[in-house]
């Protein structure tokens, strides 16, 4: 699975889940993802409960997430939780701590248990 495929799967899961849409209804953010090894850029944008994904740079990001592409792919496809790479320094987040926590919670609610 590519990172773009993983992001699209993550977006689909967010948008089809009524509870996640309610949680995100007042969360508007532009998130830049940078693969630390391949230097490829991807983005996630959340607006009024709907989430979109794409490749390339996003204007004026609120949050920057850096990690090896394999780690980002594993996180957004539910193969890995963000906690371990975050705690050991493989996942770097620049932005509000609340936004990072929300992404953790979204991935856990989609793929938790």
């Amino acid at each position: 699975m590519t990172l773009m495929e993983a992001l699209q799967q993550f977006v689909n899961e967010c948008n089809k889940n009524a509870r996640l849409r309610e949680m995100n209804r007042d969360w508007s953010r532009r998130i830049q993802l940078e693969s630390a090894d391949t230097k490829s850029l991807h983005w996630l944008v959340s607006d009024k409960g709907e989430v979109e994904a794409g490749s390339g740079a996003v204007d004026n990001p609120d949050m920057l997430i850096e990690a090896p592409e394999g780690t980002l792919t594993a996180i957004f496809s539910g193969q890995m939780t963000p906690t371990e790479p975050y705690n050991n320094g493989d996942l770097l987040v620049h932005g509000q701590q609340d936004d990072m926590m929300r992404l953790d919670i979204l991935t856990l609610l989609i793929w938790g248990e």
Partner: protein
Amino acid sequence: MKSIVSVSLGSRQRDNQGELTLLGETVQVSRRGTNGDMAQAVKLIQSLDGKVDAIGLGGIDRFLVVRQHRYEIRDARLLAEAAQVTPVVDGSGIKDTMERRIIQRLHNEKLIHPGQQVLMVSAMDRFGMAESFEQLGYPLVAGDLIFASRINYPIRSADELEELARKLLPELAKMPFDQLYPVGDAQTQAGDPRYHRYFDEADIIAGDFHYIHRYMPPSLNGKVVITNTTTRQDVELLKERGVRLLVTTTPVLNGRSYGTNVIEAALIAASGLTADDSRWAAVVEATGLEGSIVPLTSS
């Protein structure tokens, strides 16, 4: 005299000392805040190990018990393991018992009434209280996601709370504690007025006092507040805001409602038993410890 120390991740401004008498034994009790400094808390626990009869962990829970599941907060385990000899407890050994009991008592004495809306600012750390409210017919909003993570999503049942705990806590419990809960100075920072409406809509506000203090609106007119770890100043503040009834889940001694970790540590010192002993429940019962019910305003 037996002695215990509560080592807290909270502010040093709330430090105090006093005496508690349990089962006929007087225990010297001291609370020492570390302003959220984990390393300092570890050092303090190491320095107390073997010198006091029990150590309480304040400002942090080690175990979150949600129905049959028990989730362990990693940072709290690290703190507890800093002591090799002296038992270290977080209050979970008495929390469920005392909190269920006080809700039942309020209900039986008709100080609260089925149908009244309850806001629990956090409930994964007080699942027994949440379940008691629900079983007695009180509509519940649990604000764990709202107040801990600023996700504007009210949890509306104990079953949903359990489901979310099952999905979230195994991973979130591994995160640094200061990302899960305000520690040190963060406890006194102003909250977000967007969440005032949850307080406005509730008749009963229950749970962690730091969250209540941080997020409460200017008026709490006529409301019942059920919490603990309140000081005299906190009581005055709640009175100024119009709170009708203040209920503490632990006893008020010298004007202060102690944390459950203090009560559990003092009980270990007095009884020589820990919560995993088969006689523990009987010992808790024998203390006759009760929370307090204090009318603040007549509105």
